[in-house]
């Protein structure tokens, strides 16, 4: 009897020991915590659905989103736009295109704009913030005053000003304008955490070992400083999508009305709000849901990476 108990206890100890021995890096640990967090799972699911739709939309769309269908144009009246009918799930838009197909394809446009803008913003921000944090001195002062100036503008106003600099507006105008707004945020964030790393014990220890400055910056400072930047990038994806939609809405995006883009669809639906409110309602909902997905994921990523919330 007693030996049985002892055996069970021994097994349990072995089990615990085996579990404790597993190698976990910071990233793996964060992933494991994310997988247990319902908020993260919700966010990730929304993004996954959105990404699948975006990639497969040309295949999934029941009709060609760029062709006017006679069945629809025939019924277009100034005071009536056809609603759902066989073959056309959500009916027509104001121009006689299949509304549902255009919504689907819009996901792709939105994803491209959001991801590209964030990538460009992060890349430039990392270079600037990394330089400021690693070199310090006048480089730091110069770059940080520059970001101060950029940050002193309301973000949408800044994006509009940048977009307005281009002679001809296109999809890239939106991407670049949105990216530029994000640059100072990333630069400042990385610079701050690089500075914190610079005064950390392990950087002092590496210096005491005569490690090259290059190695110290790239191996000992940068990887430790990137955590907040990754979190911010996820959150920025959400705002980038909203900002891009806003720019399209204001007519600073691609002027081609055929292009299916949620912000543009929203803008063009303005005149038909009384005739068919769904034309504005669905793109708006889509934008909100996707932005929410990225925000949820970003927030839970922040939580997972934050050592203070560790159990």
């Amino acid at each position, binding site marked *: 009897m007693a030996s049985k108990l002892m055996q069970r206890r021994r097994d349990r100890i072995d089990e615990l020991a085996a579990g404790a021995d597993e*190698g*976990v*890096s*910071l990233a793996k640990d964060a992933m494991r915590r994310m997988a247990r967090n319902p908020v993260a799972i919700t966010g990730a699911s929304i993004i996954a659905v959105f990404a699948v739709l975006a990639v497969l939309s040309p295949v999934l769309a029941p009709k060609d989103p760029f062709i006017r269908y006679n069945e629809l144009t025939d019924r277009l009246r100034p005071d009536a736009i056809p609603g759902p009918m066989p073959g056309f799930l959500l009916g027509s838009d104001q121009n006689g295109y299949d509304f549902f197909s255009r919504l689907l394809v819009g996901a792709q446009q939105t994803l491209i704009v959001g991801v590209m803008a964030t990538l460009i913003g992060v890349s430039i921000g990392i270079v600037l913030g990394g330089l400021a944090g690693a070199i310090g001195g006048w480089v730091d002062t110069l770059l940080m005053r520059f970001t101060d100036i950029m940050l002193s503008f309301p973000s949408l106003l800044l994006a509009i000003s940048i977009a307005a600099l281009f002679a001809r507006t296109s999809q890239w105008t939106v991407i670049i304008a949105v990216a530029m707004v994000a640059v100072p945020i990333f630069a400042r964030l990385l610079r701050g955490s690089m500075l914190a790393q610079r005064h*950390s*014990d*392990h950087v*002092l*220890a*590496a*210096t*005491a*070992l*005569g*490690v*090259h400055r290059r*190695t110290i910056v790239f*191996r*000992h400072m940068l*990887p*430790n400083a990137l955590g907040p930047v990754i979190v911010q990038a996820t959150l920025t994806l959400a705002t980038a999508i909203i900002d891009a939609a806003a720019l399209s809405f204001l007519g600073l995006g691609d002027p081609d009305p055929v292009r299916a883009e949620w912000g543009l669809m929203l803008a063009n639906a303005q005149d038909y709000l009384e005739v068919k409110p769904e034309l504005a309602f669905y793109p708006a909902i889509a934008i909100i849901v996707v932005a929410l997905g990225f925000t949820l994921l970003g927030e839970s990523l922040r939580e997972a990476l934050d050592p203070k919330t560790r159990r």
Partner: protein
Amino acid sequence: MALLEVRDLSVVFSRKGQSPFSAVDGVSFSVQPGQTVGLVGESGCGKSVTSLAIMGLLPRRSARVGGSVAFEGTELFSLSDKEMRDRRGKDLGMVFQDPLSSLNPVVPIGLQVTEVLERHRGMARKQARAEATELLNKVGIPDPTRRLSEYPHQLSGGMRQRALIAIALACRPRLLIADEPTTALDVTIQAQILSLLKELVAGTETALIMITHDLGVVAGLCDEVNVLYGGRIVERAERHELFAAPRHPYTHGLLDSIPRLDAARGEKLSPIRGSVADNIPWDGGCAFAPRCPNALRTCVEVTPELEWHEGRLLRCHNPVQPAALGVGSKEAR
């Protein structure tokens, strides 16, 4: 020739809008090859600043370093940044106080060991890895091959400090500076780490500077002991002499304040009164005078000099008399 010759080292921290603060003032000592020298004192007495100054690790902008540090006859302060980087880790190794924060949390232990080997001994990655396994084995880390690919947070405190020691000794430096290497560890591990350090430097030419506030560490390890107070050396003696008969009232107080097993029940601990002041005025009197039980009138009027006194260096107007130690043998260890 001494391995390391520190002459009149001074460090002054100055910041805009603040009065300059003198952390180390006229510290001189030398280290022979294979010797273990202790720097002892309470928090804020300038021990760590001394070690950082020797390594050239103080921030250039806010710290003014004076005096000279000669390593095998080469003046370290006159070396360029690059020359100094080449020496750090290779000739001069350093072990820091907190092993967790001194290791990079996102880089596996192995890479942090091989990094130094590649840098200073020009080893290829594979060769360095084999050497790293050997090193971890030498400092008593079991299963070194597996440990190499683990991250610092997966190691226990003692193992982390062993890893740090392995990194510091990777290039067989001729001088190792250990800055409170056992403070962040619990007692049983402390003893292990100390005997490891002792074992690693014994029989080699590697000299060790042991920086600590713990007199027990000094007693077990050091050949010669420097006691610091307020950025100056107040007493220097050979280990046995210092513990048998501490002459400076501060040293005496330090030894006296250690709780002992053979104390009578209910006997109170005897602390040193007061605490270290932020900026200690050595001009116009002894900095320890306000806390000193032996203080005389001259102590607050004339700054004592570091002078030879019966075979040891002493900075005191009114040293503790060996007879005044009370139950004579009690102090001898």
